[in-house]
C-alpha cells in the first residue's frame, strides 16, 4: 500500500530566523503592520510504499530525523498520511 505524507520542517524556537525576519520587515511596508513572528520552514511531500500505515509512519519519522531535518536547528511534524490512490490523481471520467 502506498501512503502519501507531508512533513513540515521548522527552525527551532529561539533560533534566529533571518529569512523570517526579512519577510517580517517587509510586511509593514506593504500595509500589514500587525503581522509578527514570521518563521520560514520547509514542506516536504513524499510517498512511501509499506505493509501498514504504522510501518510507513515509523519509517517517515526516521527519515525526517536522519535526513529531512537537522535536529541541531530544526524540528519536524508529520502532517498527514493519506492512503493512495489520492483522489487528485484518479481518473475523473
Amino acid at each position, binding site marked *: 500500500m502506498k501512503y502519501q505524507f507531508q512533513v513540515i520542517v521548522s*527552525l527551532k524556537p529561539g*533560533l*534566529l530566523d*533571518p*529569512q523570517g525576519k*526579512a519577510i517580517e520587515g517587509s510586511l509593514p511596508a506593504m500595509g500589514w503592520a500587525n503581522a509578527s513572528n514570521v518563521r520560514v520552514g520547509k514542506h516536504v511531500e513524499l510517498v512511501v510504499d509499506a505493509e501498514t500505515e504504522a510501518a510507513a509512519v515509523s519509517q517517515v519519522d526516521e527519515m525526517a530525523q536522519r*535526513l*529531512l531535518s*537537522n535536529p*541541531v*536547528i530544526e524540528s519536524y511534524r508529520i502532517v498527514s498520511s493519506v492512503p493512495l490512490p489520492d483522489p487528485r490523481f484518479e481518473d475523473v471520467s
Partner: protein
Amino acid sequence: MSAGTPRVGVVTFPGSLDDRDALRAVALMGGDGVPLWHGDRDLRGVDAVILPGGFSYGDYLRTGALARFAPIMEEVRAFAGRGGPVVGICNGFQILCEAGLLSGALIRNRQLRFVCRFVDVRVETSLSTLTEGLVPGEVLRIPVKHGEGQFVARPDELARIEAEALVTFRYCGPGGELDDEHNVNGSAGWIAGIRSPQGNVVGLMPHPEHAVDPDVGPTGGQPLFASLLTYALARV
C-alpha cells in the same frame, strides 16, 4: 616526492568549487595533493583529508546535508575515528557538522547577504590539526565567501563547545578584538571554526587555501597549511 612528503587528499563532490585551489595550496606548501572522488570508497592511503568549499549537491535540502551520504564519507568518518586529520573548509565545514563529526550547524548569514571579503580571524587554540604550533591570540587574514556561515548551536551545546575549548577560530578586528562590527555573519560567539575534542577534525568557514600565495594577496592561510602538513607528516 620524497618519502617524507605528506599526502593530503582533497575530496571532489558534485558542486565542489575549491578542490583545485586546495590541491594547489597543499603543493605550494610542500605537500603532495591527492584528488579524491566522492563516489569512491578509497582514500588512496592519504595522511590527511580536506573537504573543500563549494555547493555540494547544489546545497539542496540544507548545506552539506546530502554530501554526508556520499560513499567516500564512510571512509572519511572511519579515518577521523582512527585519529586521521580531517579539515572541512566552508562547505566542507557544513558537511562535517551535518555528518555529526563536529558540533553545531551553519545557517543563513544574519545580514541575509552573501559575504565575500577578507576577514581577520583569531586563533583560539593550538590543539588542532590546523593550528598546531600557532599561538592562541594570533590574528590571521583570510577570505570568507559564503551565504550560510552563521554558526549556531543549542545553548547547552554552545556552553560545552566553549568549556572544552573546541573553538578554534573567531572572527575579530585587526587587533584581535571581538565586536559586533567584525562578526561577519552573526555567528554565535564569533565562531569561525571549531575542532573535535581530539583536535584531529577541524571545520572553518574562512578559506585558507585562497590565502597562501603572496602574489595574489594576504597569506594568512600559510601557517594553517604548514600545521596540517606537520600534523599529517607525523602520521607518515
